[in-house]
Structure formats: structure tokens, C-alpha cells
């Protein structure tokens, strides 16, 4: 994707549609793990794909808007600390955008490792640092509880994005391989 402007029309639309998909996945496609209050949030695997395809601005915005809409439509109120954490995840994963060329069909071992390094850092910062810190500042809840919540969310998201996100990117890259060289049959 060689976009000239930071906010091209395509990026804006990608943010809008991305946020809508994030919400729908968050509400309908979360798989309970059996451990109470922890779910496999497929929405974050999708967020990873969008961030890698459209860059950090789109990643952050999809995380922010998607999560806010999900919160307000489901709980009637936004949970800002976690919303900002989602934006941070999208932002940091989006930084891998320049390094990866998934839309040209390149996603081999090396790229998978790069992607996973980014996503692990992103999740660690977001759920290990950003979310609990904001929770303390805003709600002054006990530290232990927040860090435990944060690490459960962080670890489950690292696994989700690591497994599902990598799989999605791989599958997406595969569909892009032969393009450009295809002649009319």
C-alpha cells in the first residue's frame, strides 16, 4: 500500500469499516476459554491484520473507535483505560507496517518473527503498563488486582494474535502472491 497522504480516503474508510468489524467480532466472535472473564478476543487478531495493512494511525484509530463503540453499545459506558490500551496495541503493531509487505504477498518466516516481536511488545506495553496505570489513576483500584487482570488480558491476547493473527496474515499474503503477473486466461 503506497499511500501518499497519512489520512487518505482509503485509510479513513479502513478505519471506519475496521472499527465496525472490530465491534462485531468483539461482540459475536469472542470464544470463552473456560477461565472466568477471559475470552479469546478474535477482534485483536483482526486489529493486527488491519494495523499491518494500513499502518499505525489506522491501527490506533480502529482500536480506539472500535473498542469505544463496542463498550458503549454493550455496556452503555466506555472503559477508557482499556480503550486506550486497545489503541496502543493497534498503534505499536502498526509500526510493523513499514517493515512488512504483506499486500505484496510476502509473509515468510522472517516476517512472521518480526510481526510477532511487534505484537508481543505491543501487548506487553498496552496490557502490562498502559491499562493498569490508567486504571490506578482513574479508579484507584488495588494494584495486585489490576496487574493480574492486565497480565491475563495481555497473555491471552499475545496468544490470540500470535496464533490467529499470524494465520490471518499468512492466509491474506497467500491470496496476494500471484497478482500482478496473472495474464488473462
Amino acid at each position, binding site marked *: 500500500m503506497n499511500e501518499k497522504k497519512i489520512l487518505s480516503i482509503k485509510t*479513513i474508510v479502513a478505519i471506519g469499516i475496521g472499527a*465496525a468489524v472490530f465491534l462485531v467480532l468483539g461482540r459475536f466472535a469472542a470464544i470463552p476459554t473456560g477461565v472466568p472473564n477471559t475470552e479469546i478476543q*478474535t477482534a485483536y487478531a483482526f486489529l493486527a491484520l488491519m494495523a499491518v495493512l494500513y499502518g499505525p494511525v489506522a491501527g490506533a484509530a480502529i482500536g480506539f*473507535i472500535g473498542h469505544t463503540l463496542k463498550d458503549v453499545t454493550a*455496556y452503555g459506558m466506555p472503559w477508557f483505560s482499556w480503550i486506550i490500551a486497545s489503541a496502543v496495541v493497534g498503534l505499536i503493531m502498526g509500526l510493523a507496517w513499514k517493515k512488512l509487505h504483506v499486500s505484496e504477498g510476502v509473509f515468510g518466516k522472517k516476517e512472521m518473527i518480526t510481526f510477532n516481536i511487534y505484537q508481543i511488545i505491543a501487548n506487553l506495553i498496552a496490557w502490562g503498563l498502559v491499562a493498569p496505570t490508567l486504571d490506578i489513576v482513574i479508579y484507584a483500584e488495588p494494584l495486585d488486582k489490576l496487574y493480574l487482570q492486565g497480565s491475563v488480558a495481555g497473555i491471552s491476547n499475545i496468544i490470540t494474535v500470535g496464533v490467529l493473527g499470524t494465520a*490471518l496474515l499468512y492466509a491474506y499474503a497467500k491470496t496476494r502472491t500471484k497478482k500482478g503477473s496473472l495474464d488473462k486466461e
Partner: protein
Amino acid sequence: MSQTMLGYIKQDSPIHYLTGATKLICLLLFSFASMLTYDTRLLAIILIFSIVMFKVSKIQFKDVAFVVYFILVFLLLNNIAIFLFSPYEGVKIYGMRTDLFKLVGPYTVTVEQLFYQFNITLKYLSIIPMALLFMVATHPSEFAASLNRIGVSYKGAYAVAIALRYIPDVQRDYHDIAFAQQARGIDMSKKEKLSKRIKNITAILLPLIFSSLDRIETISCAMELRAFGNNKKRTWYSARPFKKGDYIAIGVATAFLVVAFLMMIKNGGRFYNPFL
């Protein structure tokens, strides 16, 4: 559909007459105020004020009941978790300990802890009526225009409008795809093992992603063809001008935030300590 979504409910009320921008600003100001303060008295006033506003809006409680029950359950669980993790957080904060009765092991219920948890609950609760009100009393059309008015770039604001516009379409896509895959025997229900369900869900995710990427393509074209992004600014069909009521509402909300600040200075911190 088993899960319902919160959406705009049409009513004839002073709250509905306020512009979307005003409601958004007020919600933000109130959120800041209630996030900032732990002063029980102020939180209680905010809660009462929000409930009154809710009444004024003529929105029926039953329309939002499902969300409220959900939140109450969440708050209960949250309270239990806090107690389990840190039974003496209140003691730490208020610097006193008044035991009520002993539970098991290291857990003793104290007045301070109860008061602390009461405050947390109040804090969460105080903003809920306002947030709900914002959701059900703001027409989605007005939302993007409002964001733009409070300083968000119109392109960013429009991204939100697109999200709101296409949620139903994406939701329909999702259900259609899930239907097609399940009709092929790909099981998503709890009957399958977890690892298998994760694998199976990609059978829904990938088609959804591809159809969404196609959608992005079509919408981008349509917007290009109708000159979106051509100018530095844009006008909004559904924007409404500010009236007296809007200024009053913002004034009141600002006052609450100022009071929250003042109370913080007076209390010498975010907590109000009645035990002193």
C-alpha cells in the same frame, strides 16, 4: 438476535434538543469530574443529577434495563475481586482500621474497606446514566458533525460515521458467513473443543475480512467520486446551531468539574475522609 445493541431512541425532550456536540462535551466533562474525584458527597450529587437528567430525557428505564443489569453484575464481580485481592485497601487509604467481623483466613471486613468499595461503586455508577443518555439521545447522524465541532478533524470524524453506518452491514455479513459455514458442518458451539473452535473460527474470519476489504475498496471509490476530502473543511447536513440550552448545559457541566477540582484541593487529595 440474542444480544441487543444500544441505539438511538427518539423522544421529545430538552435533552434531545441539545446538539450532539453539547452532549458529547458534557459527557466528557462529567466523566473527567467523576474520574478525578473520590469525594463521596460529590459523587453522590453527580449520581443524583445524572438520574434526574435521565428522567428529564423521557427515556424509559426498560429500554436500557438490559445494559444496567449487565453493569450491576459486573460491579458486583468487580467488588468481590477487589476484596479478594486487597481486603485492606481502604485501611491503607484512610489510615485507620475499624474491624467489623472476621471472615476466613486473612479476610476481615473493615468499615474503611466497605466505605472504599462503596466509593468505587458510586464512582462507576455516577457516570452510567449520563453515558447511557448520550447513547440513546444522540442521533448517530449528528455524531460526526459533533466530533468535528469539538476539534476532531473532519476526516477522523467521518471515519466514526462510516463505522456507525456499516455496523449493521458488517453484522449481517458476519451472520451470513457464520450461517454458511455452520451449514457446512463447521461447528462453533460449545460442543467443540477449544482448539478446534479456534481453528473453525478462521473459517468465518477470513471470508469476513476479505469481504470487508472489498467493501473498503467500493466505499473509497464512491467517496472519491463524490469529492470527499477535496477541501480543508466540510459542512454537515445534520449539524445544528448552538442555542441557549446548549450553553447552559456546558456551563453546568463545567461547574461540576470545577467543584471536583476545588474539593480535591480542600480534601488535600482525591479521597474524602470522613474518619478523621
